[in-house]
């Protein structure tokens, strides 16, 4: 998929796509959109092949995976016949694809629940947690990035950039442990256990418990987005409209706050689409550390107990979300900046 990110100087987290040289536009927006959506569909298909291959890479194949280590040879043979596992691989893949498309991701071994239900129950809580972290992070990162751009190459800018690299290099779980040690264990300000409960509202009703998980999730996002914001603001400060506004007598402060801020913010917001996989990864660690009942914790417990249907179901859902996220980001970028409607890569 086309994952064009404006070139930033500095660290970009793993999994975030690379800047791509932009080629001249051929065809209009409609053509770009069609090509881009088709490309996303192809990628989703390849992802489904990879997940299907993982299912077959399980020790003893999918039958052993579902029936467990104690299953006898007869049970396995019966299961394979009943589930079409004795059919050619291509037919098996097509039926796997068909089931996945209708939302049938199989049954969890342990939860007495379908994988789709298990995910549907927990995904909203993960979205709540990452959404809150994101809001907090953007509120901090945007002013920091703009301030750094205005004070570019001064000591303040230099130190803030270095701090961002340190924050990026700090594993999320270590950061969370430090926060627990300082704010919970030593200062006693906030509980280290995340809110429990089935619904989003139930979780929201215990705000004190949300503080540490949200903060832990927010710091790495601040580190990345303050850098994006800095370079985006720098790009805009060099534009002609800034000089024009200044020439007309607008104060520097007003130019930055009224014109530059708005223009620099849009590409950074579009970047959120590329950032989804990193946020899911962060949620996995934060939820495990604070025992927050979201999709990340579901995935982690499934890994502990080798609950393969849940593991692969989560991988499929997260991957599709990632593809859709970068598709949306590309589309937003193409709408904002026609130059990025480059040829398919």
């Amino acid at each position, binding site marked *: *998929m086309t*994952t064009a990110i404006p*070139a*930033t*100087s*500095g*660290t*970009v*987290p*793993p*999994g*975030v*796509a*690379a*800047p*791509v*040289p932009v080629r001249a536009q051929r065809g209009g927006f409609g053509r770009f959109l069609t090509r881009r959506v088709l*490309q996303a569909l*192809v*990628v*989703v298909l*390849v*992802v489904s*092949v*990879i997940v299907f291959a*993982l299912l077959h890479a399980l020790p003893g194949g999918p039958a052993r995976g579902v029936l467990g280590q104690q299953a006898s040879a007869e049970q396995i043979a019966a299961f394979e016949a009943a589930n079409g596992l004795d059919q050619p691989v291509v037919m098996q893949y097509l039926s796997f694809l068909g089931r996945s498309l209708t939302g049938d991701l199989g049954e969890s071994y342990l939860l007495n629940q379908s994988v789709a239900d298990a995910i549907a129950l927990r995904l909203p809580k993960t979205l709540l947690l990452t959404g809150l972290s994101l809001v907090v992070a953007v509120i901090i990162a945007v002013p920091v990035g703009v301030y750094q751009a205005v004070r570019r190459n001064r000591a303040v800018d230099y130190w803030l950039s*270095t701090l961002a*690299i*340190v924050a990026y*290099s*700090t*594993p*999320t*779980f*270590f950061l969370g*442990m*430090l926060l*627990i*040690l300082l704010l919970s*264990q*030593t200062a006693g300000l906030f509980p280290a256990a995340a809110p429990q409960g089935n619904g989003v509202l139930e979780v929201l009703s215990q705000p004190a418990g949300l503080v540490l998980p949200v903060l832990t999730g927010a710091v790495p996002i601040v580190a990345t987005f303050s850098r994006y914001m800095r370079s985006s603001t720098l790009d805009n400060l060099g534009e002609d409209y800034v000089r024009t506004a200044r020439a007309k007598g607008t104060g520097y402060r007003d130019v930055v706050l009224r014109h530059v801020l708005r223009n620099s913010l849009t590409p950074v917001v579009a970047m959120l689409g590329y950032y989804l996989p990193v946020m*899911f*990864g962060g949620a*996995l*660690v934060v939820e495990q550390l604070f025992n927050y009942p979201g999709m990340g914790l579901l995935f*982690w417990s499934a*890994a*502990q107990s*080798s609950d*393969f249907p849940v*593991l*692969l179901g989560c*991988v499929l859902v*997260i*991957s*599709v979300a*990632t*593809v859709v996220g*970068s598709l949306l980001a590309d589309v937003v970028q193409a709408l904002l900046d026609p130059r990025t409607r480059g040829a*398919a890569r």
Partner: protein
Amino acid sequence: MTALRRFKRNRLAVVGAVALAVLVLFAVLGPLVYPTEQVATDLGAANLPPGVDGHLLGTDALGYDNLGRLMVAGRVSLLVGVAAGVLATVVGTLWGAIAGYVGGAVDAVMMRVVDAGIAIPAIFLLLVLSTIVRPTVGMMIVVLGMVSWLVPARLIRAEALSVRTRDYVVAARAMGASHRRTVLSHVIPNTVGTVVVNATFQVADAILLVAYISFLGMGIQPPTTDWGAMLNDGINYIYQGAWWLILPPGLAIVIVVCALNFVGDGLRDVVDVKGRTA
């Protein structure tokens, strides 16, 4: 000489290089200077605070000397990180160079595979893989390499696309060089700046990923340990205020990853590659 001078001008890069050297010496030579028992447990001496009975950084729940453990864990973290980073770079470079050089349908297919791989977040894929294979040191290197080659592949492919139209490539082909020779002797050597800079960041990311997997309890199994696993062991004693089980391994990870990022930035100044592209 100018290259070294340009690297030296970036003060953070120099600090990073020194920190890296110190940590490598600490992990590799440390146990020779400060020998400790790291296989047999000593439950009589468990959870001692720093300084007690000659344990400079205390002991953990199984009675292992914490400073000694930090050294042997560092060996594993650094070895796995460097090896996985190098493996990912080699595989990614070959993949990207071939895709970019050949172009057309082959390129399209190869790059859609990369896109799909990138769409599956690495931590999730790693956790699934580590439930399937037994996570030994060698296996961790292979598995980490398998999920980390995608980004270098993309980068090198973009470079190869521009290199293949250069005159020297056309000339090599005209003189009868095989495709294989052209890719190995002309395309890849001319992307070496990008490759080297990216390899530094790859190693940094690999060290972080190993730590994540170990912290999540799906990494290399005891008595072998790494910095992430030490943190995973230490978290159970966080409420007893056992900071010595948490801060040393955590800071070690932060320092080594920071140092690699600083060095990578410095190298980028030397070879003049644009923007870090994770």
